[in-house]
């Protein structure tokens, strides 16, 4: 009754669009002060502290030495650490690609289901968000372990005669990360596919475009915003989910997340951890910049 989707939104009611700093504007914006303060103090200042700390160093006891140096950043260029960056970068890229390849058909097929079935399938896709991420990671150790479920089944049917070694590899971490993040990809693509104007597809068929031709010339370009958004939403967390690489990778491959965590806790080298955190944030900014370029014409924000 009070909610009309088509009604003019309340949003257009308010504002006084006059420029300049008059009292009226200050008064109008005053209520927002506590929120702005809350987030500036609790997110802004900590991030600034990290930036400052990344230029300092520490003594052998872990105490901070207040002296400007670029040592931490020089250390980051060390091949050992560059390797860590490369590992994380490729993990995030591959996670994006795998979730895209597996998730695209899921989103596409879901959009083509009848209404009732569709909302059920969407529920199935979203449900994992509500299941503990540790549990979902742990599930893979039960499946992939040397005496895990998959090895047991294969041994039982005599497909193999000794257990396959599937744990603690790059691929294991990749599997776990992609598994964790695939719902983001599917939902992003689904939103794009769902908005697709089906008459365009029919027009293409009528003009003699085959199934694949129509897909590559129409469906894919039109769902590009969803793909870009999904890729970004998957890429960013894939850089930092260190508990997955810890549990499934066993520390065999080092990723930035693990490194930052080790440095900040056991390593007691917060300045170096800070420098890596800054490096990681810069990588995220780069990805967001690319996303901004790709999705220029797309008005939706990343988190709608």
């Amino acid at each position, binding site marked *: 009754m*009070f909610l009309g989707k088509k009604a*003019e*939104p*309340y*949003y257009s*009611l308010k*504002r*006084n*669009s006059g420029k300049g700093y008059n009292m009226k*504007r200050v008064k*109008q*914006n005053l*209520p*927002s002060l506590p*929120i702005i303060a*809350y*987030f*500036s103090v609790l*997110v*802004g200042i*900590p*991030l600034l502290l*990290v930036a400052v700390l990344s230029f300092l160093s520490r003594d052998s006891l872990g105490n901070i030495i207040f002296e400007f140096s670029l040592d931490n950043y020089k250390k980051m260029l060390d091949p050992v650490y560059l390797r860590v960056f490369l590992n994380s970068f490729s993990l995030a890229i591959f996670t994006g690609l795998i979730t895209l390849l*597996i998730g695209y058909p*899921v989103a596409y*097929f879901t959009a*083509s289901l009848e209404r009732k079935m569709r*909302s059920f399938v969407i529920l*199935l896709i*979203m449900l994992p968000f*509500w299941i*503990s991420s*540790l*549990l979902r990671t*742990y*599930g893979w150790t039960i*499946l992939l372990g040397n*005496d*895990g*479920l998959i090895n*047991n089944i294969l041994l039982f049917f005599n497909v193999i005669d000794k257990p396959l070694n599937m744990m603690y590899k790059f691929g294991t971490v990749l599997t776990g990360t992609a*598994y964790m993040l695939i719902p983001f990809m599917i939902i992003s693509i689904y939103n794009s596919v769902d908005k697709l104007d089906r008459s365009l597809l029919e027009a293409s068929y009528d003009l003699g475009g085959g199934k694949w031709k129509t897909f590559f010339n129409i469906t894919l370009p039109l769902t590009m915003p969803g793909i870009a958004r999904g890729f970004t939403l998957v890429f*960013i967390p894939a850089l*930092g*989910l*260190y508990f997955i690489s*810890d*549990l499934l990778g066993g520390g065999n491959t080092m990723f*930035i997340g693990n490194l*930052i*965590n080790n440095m*900040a*806790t056991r390593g007691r080298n*917060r300045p170096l951890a*800070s420098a890596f*955190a800054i490096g*990681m*944030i810069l990588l*995220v900014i780069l990805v967001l910049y690319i996303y901004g370029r790709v999705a220029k014409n797309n008005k939706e924000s990343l*988190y709608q």
Partner: protein
Amino acid sequence: MKQKRFRTFYLSLFFIILYVPVLSVVLYSFNKSSSTAYWAGFTLDWYRELFNDRIILEAFKVSIEVALLTSVLSAIIGTASAIISIYVTKSTEKTINGLMFLPLIVPEVALGVSLLIFFSSLKLPFGTFTLVISHSLFCVPYVYIMVQLRLKEINISIIEAAKDLGATRWQIIKTIILPLVMPSTLTASLLALAMSLDDVIISTYMAGPTTTTLPVHIFSMMRVGVTPKVNALCTLFLVGTFLLIGINQIIGKKGGNIFEN
């Protein structure tokens, strides 16, 4: 026809892979043997052991306490922010949006470490307080987004009618806006509850020496080795999650449910 069959096949296969890891955790929580190598028969021993584990019960208490406080705090801040955002100027609204966006795009490890450095330089004791504050940072934005979506649907004519009848801004907020956004606030606060209960990374840095949350404790258990006690604990967590979703389905009928946002 052929395409439809392929569609059913693909989706079924996908959902099997999506849920098998979860179900296998549940299955092995009932296994008598402590190894996953074989099935030794059905048992509830691991659950019994769980309830005798003081550290786990303690961590559980902390988790629940933190999650409830986070959920209430985030609901209040998020809803207030969303309502305030419609009254301020456009540029201020953009500033709020940008700040809310920040905790969502900074990877959790980086945010966690930055909060660790921040709170330890303030010499604040780590524990429930730091946990709730840090969890609110990634929960408030979701409440904000969900309430804002709802606000956008409010029909302008009822606000104008109230204004014409002489209602003050505060009266409009109290009697019209708040009741209309309440279902979204409730749904979002359940989401906040679930996210707080699930958080591992930020909690690792924010937990105090005596106050760890359950996920942080579970993570340290998992690192040491696989025991069905972990499975039992995870299964109970899962049951709790489904209860939350059930509650949401009941109260959320009006405001759309969590899966729609």
